[in-house]
């Protein structure tokens, strides 16, 4: 896996040299916000990090020579440092560097194509910063209230604040939510960490040396040919499958054979399946209240109130007293999402949520998932809905033969795949 990532990583720094200057100014779903905080370091690092879709410090320290050097030059560390420490130092540096516009310009100089656009946006640096923080706070509010109005307002703010958004994202503007998704908060808090995770089915090596760190609020799309281990990977995260080697840490809890820890993790992690797995002998409402009542020991009234709230969110409160067998596939999948949400998980796993649905029903499920992403939920989605990946994901992971072949920001992944295997795969699915 390390090899594969290295390959992609090495390829990325080449891009700014003039091959794809345009993409530089794209607002990246990948941690754009995160980096805005330290954007004062200067457009160079901001731009470069943005360019790579990087929010993941390990990658910078391990594999990206130019960036490493740049940061090394500015910060006081050698080799690896803790991410928290890096951000702290970077912020300190940013505070120092911010007033020196000339330095910033100088740093930005190599990227000529982007410079004019950027300059316009960057000149009143302080102003931009304040706007962006304001926008951010609006987003947080949006996540809480989730009303359409505030969402639109925040979209407007973000469009105004980042001129790039409106100009250079032609592909994702169809639903207008690209600018929103790019503003979703991606924190530096680790949600899931897989270290050298391996799994075998008998003699068959399904997952090989998987290393993956998922940060809170991230939306990761995992794709790959069938049998590549993508479903197995996310099923390992809530222990529906057991891994034999390596480490899985979810929300700070390491997955072992300890049943208590497994239960704890399952309470934090919701999951939606390809075939919904609703309980056919219970009504929709009972499906939703079952786990809160029996696992979280809530009262029936409270569980029902919560359930109705989430059923409204997935837009089927009127079906509450029907049985799953009486609903369409799309409705069933939305019930399944609501059922998971009733446990108020911090992480949601989706295992091909739309692949068993009729074409007409896919959108209603994806819409619910997009709404969910906008609330800042950490999501791991195994799907081949590439439109969804572009719109919502901040990272796309491509797997084959139980390994991670490539991972990148969605636009980069689709427009400029690095590995031959990825190219082949994309050509197969994007007819």
């Amino acid at each position, binding site marked *: 896996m390390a090899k594969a990532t290295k390959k992609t990583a090495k390829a990325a720094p080449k891009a700014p040299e003039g091959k794809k200057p345009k993409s530089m100014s794209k607002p990246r779903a990948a941690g754009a916000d995160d980096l805005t905080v330290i954007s004062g370091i200067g457009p160079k690092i901001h731009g470069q990090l943005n360019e790579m879709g990087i929010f993941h410090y390990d990658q910078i320290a391990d594999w990206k020579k130019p960036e490493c050097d740049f940061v090394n030059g500015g910060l006081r560390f050698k080799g690896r440092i803790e991410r928290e420490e890096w951000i702290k130092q970077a912020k300190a540096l940013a505070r120092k560097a911010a007033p020196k516009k000339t330095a910033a310009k100088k740093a930005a100089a190599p990227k000529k194509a982007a410079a004019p656009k950027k300059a316009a946006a960057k000149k009143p640096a302080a102003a931009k910063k304040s706007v962006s923080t304001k926008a951010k706070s609006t987003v947080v509010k949006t996540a809480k209230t989730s009303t359409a109005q505030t969402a639109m307002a925040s979209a407007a703010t973000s469009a105004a604040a980042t001129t790039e958004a409106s100009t250079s994202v032609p592909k994702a503007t169809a639903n207008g939510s690209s600018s929103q998704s790019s503003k979703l908060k991606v924190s530096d808090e680790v949600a899931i960490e897989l270290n050298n995770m391996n799994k075998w089915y008998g003699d068959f090596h399904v997952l090989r040396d998987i290393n993956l760190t998922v940060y809170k609020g991230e939306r990761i799309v995992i794709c790959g040919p069938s049998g590549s281990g993508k479903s197995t990977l996310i099923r390992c995260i*809530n*222990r*529906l499958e057991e891994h034999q080697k390596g480490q899985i840490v979810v929300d700070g809890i390491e997955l072992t054979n300890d049943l208590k820890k497994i*239960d704890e993790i*399952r*309470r934090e*992690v*919701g*999951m939606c*399946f390809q*075939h*919904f*797995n*609703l*309980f*056919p*002998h219970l009504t929709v409402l009972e499906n939703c209240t*079952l*786990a809160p009542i*029996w*696992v979280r020991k809530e009262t029936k009234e409270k569980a029902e109130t919560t359930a109705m709230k989430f059923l409204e969110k997935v837009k089927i409160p009127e079906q509450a007293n029907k*049985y*799953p*067998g*009486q609903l369409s596939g799309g409705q069933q999948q939305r019930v*399944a999402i609501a*059922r*998971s949400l009733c*446990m108020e998980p911090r992480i949601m796993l989706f295992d091909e949520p739309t692949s068993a649905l009729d074409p007409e029903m896919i959108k209603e499920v994806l819409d619910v998932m997009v709404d969910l992403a906008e609330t800042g939920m950490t999501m791991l989605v195994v799907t081949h809905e590439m439109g969804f990946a572009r719109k919502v994901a901040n990272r796309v992971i491509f797997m084959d033969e139980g390994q991670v072949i490539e991972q990148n920001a969605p636009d980069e992944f689709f427009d400029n795949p690095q590995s031959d295997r990825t190219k082949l795969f994309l050509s197969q699915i994007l007819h």
Partner: protein
Amino acid sequence: MGLDNSITKPYVRTEMVPQKAPPPGTVGPRKWLWDNVFASMLNFTTVGNAITSILMIVLTFGVIFLAWWVAAVLLKFGWQDAIFTGTDGSYCRPEDNKGKVPIGQNIGACWPFITHRFGQFMNGFYPEPERWRIYLTYIIGAPLIAGLLIPSIPRKGLNSILLFVAYPIIATILLSGGNMEIAGSTYIFWAVVFAAILITLFAVEKLTDSKGLFAAGGKVVIAVAIAMFAILFLLDFDFGLEFVETSRWGGLMLTLVIGLVGIVVSLPLGIILALGRRSQMPVVRLASTIFIEVWRGVPLITVLFMSSVMLPLFFAEGVSFDKLIRALIVVALFSSAYMAEVVRGGLQAIPKGQYEGAQALGLSFWQTTNLITMPQALKLVIPGIVNTFIGLFKDTTLVSIIGLYDFLGIQEAALQDTAWLAPTNQMTGFLFMAAVYFMFCFSMSRYSLYTERRLHTGHER
């Protein structure tokens, strides 16, 4: 409308075709009769069809004739030629039938034999002045059973506790008379057992450092102990009822006792065995499998015989088990082995996704089993469960071979009565027995169909 609907030309529909009623003759009773009766009989278009049609005509009329013939014979025997009144067997004997039927003519069913012996058929040799106790047991049980079976009656939980915990104790005391002279050593034995369990719990908690085990388990153990002693005390208590030993029980009452105990015990035991056989733990799985295979591999009659002939080998001399208790245990264990396989079949049919869905929500194994998989599995195998119940109910007739006079066996006793010797007594008796068994089994079957329909939630797999 107006547009050419053929696919040879470009075409755009401008108006949707509204829903219309089906053409006449394609629905309704006439159509049904045609489809189900006449269609196969009146097709002479080809030689093959003609042969089939003729065969169908022959079959149809043959079956109609057979049904009419059986009905006619039974009606003649049970109604036309039957004797309805009489005070002894002579009324049903052609040679001295008090002039009612000419000598030489067939005598039909002897219904006075049934009415005269009705009390015995129902209650066996239970002493007549004490039979009110049986009727009281029925009167208490009927509303409890109805309460459990009729879905719209509320408080199922309380109902179940009353029916499955309180009622058996009440019934035992009422039917046997209680006052069982339980030895003091029995109380001491159970006290020692419960104390030992408590001490073990305490020791395990201290040794394995599992906090709360003693507190939680201790509560359960003490509750069970209290219930146990309460039951022992109640059975020991003198309510002033005459003691009626089980060898005097008989008739339909005995059949119901064995049948209901078998049904009530075999379902939960079968569920546990089915879970055991699917368990991940090798010892549990092996033990369940052995139990099921052994009981299924031996005929019920053999086990019943063995229980009366071979059991003394295992116990000290003088220790004897009540015949009825032996029969109850054998029947319950026997049918639980069958039940286990039926339930296991249901569990096999539950998709893996159901377990995964439940696990992903954080439900434990027992919660998943109780709330998700078992209800669905049981619903799937209702026909199989009721099949086993019906089989069990009818197999209770086999207890007559160990000397218990169940509903069928009691007739043999009644036939010995010299005052009631008559040629058609046995036939009449069998007709009556068959009707009663059919009534019970058919109602079970109908109830299961009703339950199946009621639990159907429109989910087809």
